[in-house]
């Protein structure tokens, strides 16, 4: 594949944002994603929301939900 800049669709950008949590993106993928995020608010929101999802999953596996406030 020739390393050149392409305009990503949101669908492709979303896939890359998910993959970057599991594997290293190539330089081209990183560049393309960066340019897309500069111009796309929905994808910036998506990126934030993936972060929330990861934090939620981690928190779910560590402390779990906040305790219910029941007096002894």
């Amino acid at each position, binding site marked *: 594949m020739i390393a050149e800049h392409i305009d990503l669709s*949101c*669908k492709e950008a979303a896939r890359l944002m998910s*993959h970057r949590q599991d594997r290293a993106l190539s330089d081209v993928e990183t560049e393309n994603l960066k340019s897309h995020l500069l111009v796309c608010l929905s994808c910036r929101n998506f990126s934030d929301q993936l972060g929330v*999802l990861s934090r*939620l999953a981690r928190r*779910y596996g*560590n402390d779990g*939900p906040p305790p219910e406030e029941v007096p002894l």
Partner: protein
Amino acid sequence: MGVSKNDNPQQKQRALFAEVETHRGYMLRFATAKLRDVGQAEEVVQEALLAALDGIASFSGQSALRTWLTSILKFKIIDFQRRVISERAHFTSAPQDDDSADPAWLDKMFDNTGHWHPRLASWANPDGAFEEKQFFEVFERCMDKLPSSASRVFFKREVMGIDTDEICKEESITASNCWVMLHRARMALRECLDRNWFQGDKK
């Protein structure tokens, strides 16, 4: 735990037992992710909970209760797997998701030029959501809606924090298959949280 030493020890123990019970759902998911079989998972969780209640005196309260319970559960799972392996020759491996094309539900999130449809609105106050028990319940319900293989892989990756390499080995799938499954799981979960919490009427 926040329980002072002056409290009636029986009361204190009863409260702790009740609190242990609130982690059963999480433990069941953890065990199901590891063992695949809900029936087996229930068995192991029961063993772990009994062991936990038996040894509750050794819970120092320094780690979170869930962390302590999980360490007991992990031990019980390994123990169980050893028993099963010695009883049976092999586990059957689960069927793999087809990753040749995106499923229709995922395609529907985008218009025909590949842009979000509808546009994604930002999530208001996610930190506040973390303080609400119901938010975690919504998350559990969303995970339950995933296909079992996707739910298992997501749980291993994001909840347990296992490396994708190791997940691939455990699941007997290729790395790219694993990435695809994780991506689809995240897309479905994001959408589910969005609909049922952030954009919906919350409770």
